[in-house]
């Protein structure tokens, strides 16, 4: 056989296996070494909610998708060019995610009677049964080759088999012409403290690579050339990490210590993990007794002058609502991070959705305006976490930052910023000369922000609380006129933030008649779809929102230019309904909604928008 080599613009590789097979690590290593090689990357882990479902079962399959590109890529890809399936269950649950002519690598050792039965195959030809005979099946005895590779390693059988993911990694490196040196370096960092394991993993990976090289498989190898990226130092960052670091950045730029009060909840917990580990940067974290205590400890820390945050997902926001209302009423700075997942109730904890938007906007008693902003890529979680903190501190308000499971666990290459390029954050501390004339709810008359005296500051002792208070003295007040005035002021304070946020920008072809609108984590899929539509001669514009409350000041002006507006979101039309309530009448606002707790595919967005032409 002749091994040919094809050069591709981009390729999607999906690693899947039992949740104990180490597919997340394999995927991460492959994406990192692709990035180091100079490819654009975007990744998406797809793992089960159960920690360890029965081995070999359909519910125990864990996947990790990597999209690598020689040009700009925006999503982890719709369908895989290459699927690595470590067992029959992994093959069965992932066939819907592969292209017709995909290369499918299987560990043939696991495709025995028992493995097929566990995956509920009815015949002994899984490929026919799944109707994927058009795919290029590469049947590799990964388990047995791993065993013979490590026969003399001195490791026990169980430890040996745990190295089989490295065989798969080596094989895929061969398939994509990735030199192993960088992978060796990465493994060195991973297993550096355990030399025996490091040697074993390195040997298996090398054997996997050589196996590909030697078998003369009737399959082509691929090359995805390096892209031209902006000069700089890069790292592979997940959304939750970026969110955590963005808060640290805001802490440095404001000079206020960072405090996180949080309760573990999927898919937000990695924010707590990351910040709990950053003690060298002075971060204090409290793992609270519940969601309510998570936000309440943060509110206490804000009263004490810290940059205070709480991280959670939709169910946690529901529990924190009353306390967020307290921060609205007391006018304290607070960052609330909602890493959205599928709902309602416990819903689909590991999957992404955008169904918390109206909860974030309106889910509190009373007239209770909060700032709501949303990150749109794993990497820009850093910037929007920074922005959330900056707005909270400078405007004395709770800010809800929306991300989702897709952004939180997905990763992209990130050019590491230099903190000197970020703006200072200047909270409205009471000027010392106001001592004696100051009251806690006196405001700056331009942006309606009250002056802040941190608990413990000499000469400014005062009382605040959740009861309505007199706008002048801060004393409890039930006066009807005063309540109206305070309600209006709290709203005006949030509305005024529209003056300090960037205007809405239009991407794609601004001269089009059709405008695709989205918000938050769907950016990559919507942008890729709009790019494809324009490439196909269908003029399409796009406006993606990161600032939701308040909306950018030019929102009505931008939307009014388009004949048809298609709002695409992963819910039943929450942002569309919000826009209709905020925009002038007469706009033709249509919807493309999906609630499957999965990201959009580029293809379905493209087709849905096309149907509106």
């Amino acid at each position: 056989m002749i091994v040919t080599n094809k050069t591709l613009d981009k390729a999607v590789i999906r690693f899947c296996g039992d949740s104990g097979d180490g597919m997340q690590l394999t995927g991460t290593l492959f994406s990192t070494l692709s990035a180091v090689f100079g490819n654009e990357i975007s990744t998406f882990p797809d793992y089960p909610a159960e920690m360890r479902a029965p081995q070999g079962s359909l519910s125990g399959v864990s996947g990790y998708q990597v999209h690598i590109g020689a040009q700009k890529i925006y999503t982890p890809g719709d369908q895989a060019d290459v699927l690595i399936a470590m067992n029959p269950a992994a093959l069965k649950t992932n066939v819907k995610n592969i292209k017709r002519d995909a290369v499918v690598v299987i560990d043939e050792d696991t495709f025995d009677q028992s493995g097929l039965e566990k995956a509920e195959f009815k015949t002994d030809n899984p490929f026919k049964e799944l109707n994927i005979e058009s795919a290029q099946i590469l049947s590799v005895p990964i388990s047995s080759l791993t065993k013979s590779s490590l026969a003399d390693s001195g490791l026990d059988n169980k430890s040996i088999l745990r190295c089989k993911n490295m065989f798969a990694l080596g094989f895929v490196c061969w398939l994509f012409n990735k030199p192993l040196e960088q992978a060796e370096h990465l493994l060195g960092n991973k297993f550096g403290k355990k030399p025996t394991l490091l040697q074993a993993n390195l040997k298996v990976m090398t054997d996997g690579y050589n196996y590909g090289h030697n078998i003369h498989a009737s399959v082509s190898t691929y090359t995805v050339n390096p892209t031209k990226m902006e000069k700089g130092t890069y790292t592979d960052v997940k959304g939750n990490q970026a969110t955590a670091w963005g808060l640290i950045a805001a802490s440095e730029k404001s000079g206020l210590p960072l405090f996180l009060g949080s309760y573990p909840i999927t898919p937000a917990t990695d924010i707590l993990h990351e910040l709990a580990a950053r003690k060298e940067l002075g971060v204090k974290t409290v793992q609270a007794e519940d969601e309510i205590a998570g936000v309440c400890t943060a509110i206490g820390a804000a009263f004490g002058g810290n940059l205070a945050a709480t991280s959670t997902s939709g169910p946690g926001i529901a529990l924190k609502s009353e306390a967020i209302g307290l921060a609205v009423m007391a006018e304290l700075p607070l960052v609330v991070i909602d890493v959205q997942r599928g709902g309602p109730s416990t819903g689909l904890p590991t999957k992404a959705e955008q169904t918390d938007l109206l909860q974030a906007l309106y889910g509190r008693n009373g007239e209770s305006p909060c700032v709501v902003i949303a990150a749109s890529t794993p990497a820009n979680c850093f910037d929007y976490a920074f922005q959330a903190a900056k707005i909270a501190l400078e405007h004395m308000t709770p800010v809800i930052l929306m991300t989702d499971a897709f952004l939180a666990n997905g990763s992209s290459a990130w050019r590491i910023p230099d903190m000197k390029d970020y703006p200072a954050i200047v909270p409205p501390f009471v000027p010392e000369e106001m001592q004696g004339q100051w009251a806690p709810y006196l405001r700056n008359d331009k942006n309606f922000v009250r002056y802040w005296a941190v608990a413990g500051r000499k000469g400014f002792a005062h009382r605040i609380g959740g009861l309505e208070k007199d706008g002048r003295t801060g004393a409890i007040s039930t006066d009807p006129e005063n309540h109206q005035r305070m309600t209006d002021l709290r709203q005006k304070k949030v509305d005024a933030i529209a003056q300090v946020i960037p205007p809405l920008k239009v991407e794609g072809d601004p001269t089009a008649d059709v405008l695709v609108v989205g918000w938050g984590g769907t950016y990559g899929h919507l942008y890729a779809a709009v790019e494809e539509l324009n490439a196909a001669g269908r003029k399409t514009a796009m406006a993606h929102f990161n600032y939701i409350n308040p909306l950018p000041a030019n929102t009505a002006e931008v939307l009014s230019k388009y004949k048809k507006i298609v709002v695409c979101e992963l819910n039943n039309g929450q942002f569309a309904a919000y826009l209709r309530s905020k925009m002038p009448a007469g706009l033709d606002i249509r919807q493309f909604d999906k609630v499957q707790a999965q990201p959009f595919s580029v293809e379905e967005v493209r087709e849905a928008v096309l149907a509106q032409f």
Partner: protein
Amino acid sequence: METNYTPQDYKSSGKVKWCPGCGDHAVLNTLHKAMAELGVAPDQMAVISGIGCSSRLPYYMNSYGFHTIHGRASAIATGLKTANPDLTVWQVTGDGDCLAIGGNHFIHAVRRNVDLNIILMNNRIYGLTKGQYSPTSPKGFISKSSPYGTVEEPFRPAELCLGARGQFFARLLDVDLKNSQETLVAAARHKGCSVVEALVNCVIFNDGTHRDIQEKEFRADRTIYLRHGEKMIFGNNRDKGLMLDGFQLKVVTIGQNGITEDNILTHDAHCIDNTLHFKLATMTGPDFPVALGVIRDVEAPTYEEEVRRQVADVQAKRPQVKCLNDFFKTLETWEIK
């Protein structure tokens, strides 16, 4: 000890709005006096409260104060103390706020040993909502929400506190002003979470709930004021005392059956084992006196200091990482040139 402050310095200009005769007045006045004795500047202390009659107290203090939401004061105070360990933080709460809606936060603040001074005003009733039974109302208690009597057992705050591994528990009686001040001062001086159960009267909805021990004529016979290092002696004639009988406490009379003062137990509030504190704190009439004063006072590492220490330790171990730019240098990175 003389300090630069008088009780007046801790009084805010806010008009106190509790009912005339409410036991909360006494606790407030005692807190003003205790703070003057402690000499902590009013702007170096904060009073955090939840919701309920007692939770109005921060408005009557000339200190930092935060009147928050129902049940959450322990969590908010935990955040404040962790963020700013140098502040003296009081939490003022009631039996409903602390033990019903706020029960979870309360036991965890106690367990963590956050250096909070918690005054739990126990009048065994919901006053602000006008008379429903509370988690400390006795079984069978008739109220607006239990017209045929409650069918549930009450909490005893001491059991929750000690059960949550509390290191400081004290009890005071609203009418016992002199001893109350000593108790609040001891609570403030204790490093760690101090729980003070204040037995207070609700003159409107539960008048006389603590009458058995409040009335002057039998208070000395029905209560015992405990002081560390002193004999457990009580009674109008100071002739009664507590002794151990096997694993049980018993009340004895000095001078009878050959019992002298030497046979009477000496109070050890600092004893790490809390078994005897448990027994003392749960004594009730008519067979036993109700214990007042500091029942348990054991030093242990505090949460906020442990947090501060851990941050300092890690900073000492990673001196090369002082800011985010330094931290980024420790990541797995690659260069694009």
